[in-house]
């Protein structure tokens, strides 16, 4: 086994350790949401999704933005690690986006009376999901690693420019999605227990993102190292 492979294995182990920590944290968030926070007056138990859904949205957005920045840097620096990192971050972003798109309808059915509405935020998340699904379709269709890295970077950078346009497009419609209750210009309008659980969840999802990306980066780096050994 080469040094590069061993180092990649170490990275995977570190990533898994951080992920384990995040899973314990997630269990704590569930417990807090169940035992500690009060039931919301109008939405009842359905409101509990609030401790999972917005943090997932944030983690997926972080995954996509970081992937875009890493792709841009790759085109300038031509360092393969940046491509591996962009791939890892985009894939984790896609996983969180899936979480976002599945928890949303569960809440929407009892509250809005429909699994899906063509609301601005829903449409936005869906299109972003499709964009990165295309990114991975392209990655899997190119064999040469250098070509794959360049093409993927081009799609990710084009995607970064597309995001504000999708935003403009969907917001030219009206939105019925709940507006932010925490990040806004005046004070957060939440009871303390809810706010604390909510913020804990954001910390947990950040740790989860870091753990997942580290592990996924290790997997990608190991594959690159093995490809090099095969080629050499």
């Amino acid at each position, binding site marked *: 086994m080469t040094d590069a492979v061993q180092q990649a294995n170490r990275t995977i182990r570190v990533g898994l350790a951080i992920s384990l920590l995040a899973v314990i944290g997630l269990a704590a968030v569930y417990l807090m949401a169940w035992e500690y926070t009060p039931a919301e007056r109008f939405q009842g138990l359905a409101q509990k999704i609030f401790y999972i859904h917005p943090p997932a949205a944030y983690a997926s957005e972080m995954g996509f933005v970081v992937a875009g920045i890493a792709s841009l840097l790759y*085109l300038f620096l031509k360092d393969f690690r940046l491509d591996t990192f962009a791939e890892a971050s985009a894939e984790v972003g896609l996983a969180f986006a899936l979480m976002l798109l599945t928890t949303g309808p569960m809440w929407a059915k009892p509250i809005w009376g429909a699994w899906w509405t063509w609301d601005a935020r829903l449409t936005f998340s869906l*299109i*972003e999901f*499709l*964009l990165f*699904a*295309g990114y991975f*379709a*392209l990655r899997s*269709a*190119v*064999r040469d690693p250098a*070509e794959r890295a*360049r*093409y993927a*970077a*081009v*799609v990710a*950078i*084009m*995607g970064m*420019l*597309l995001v504000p*346009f*999708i935003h*403009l*497009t969907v917001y*030219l419609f009206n939105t019925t999605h709940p507006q932010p209750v925490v990040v806004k210009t005046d004070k957060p309008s939440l009871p303390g227990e809810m706010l604390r659980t909510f913020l804990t969840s954001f910390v947990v999802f950040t740790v989860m993102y870091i753990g997942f990306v580290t592990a996924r980066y290790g997997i990608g780096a190991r594959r690159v190292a093995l490809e090099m050994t095969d080629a050499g």
Partner: protein
Amino acid sequence: MSTLRAAMAIAAKDLRIEWRHKTALLTATMFAILVLLIFVFARDPASVPLAAVAPSVLWVTLALSALVALNRAFLLEREHSALEGILLAPVPRNALFWGKWSANLAFVLTVQAVAFPIWILFFNVTPTPVLFAVAAVALLAAIGFTAVGTLFSAMAVRTRFAELLLPVLLLPFMIPPVFAASEATVRLLAGRPMGELWGWLRLMALYDLAFLVLANLLFPVVVDE
């Protein structure tokens, strides 16, 4: 040779090839007619009047036939490694982009120009001067997404599953212009005031500008080894 002249030479070459074959043009046109026919028949004539679905049908047809049209852009160059020949020529890389893009735009617009009167005929659209404005909206939408399509088809042809990959990559990018164009079409056909269209038109113009610039910048990254 200046960039402009080189670009015009490349565009002229593509259009001349297309003019002599006519296969791609015929395929895209037949495809557009097929889509229009499906919409006419896959509708309950008792409950859904033709006029109610006309704008959405127009944009489904135009968007899908543009996808079919864009696929051919670089397939042409794959045979006998023709692209290598162009890349060896002492012309700037963006001449290739501008040439390919203008040929694509001309091609997509031709398909749209054929599909448009058929749509008017099949959907009993009243021929008024408003239809010129709809055609202008179609042009405004096509400028931007053909730029993205030109960049992506240069990548897609070098991969496995080229014909499948281009629609997958291009679809999210077609959403803002096609969405804006269909919104504008609905308002134009309903005779709404100009003020309601303004936001959508501005969105399309901004999209065209932004993606022409970025696609042109990224094009050398795609074609260079």
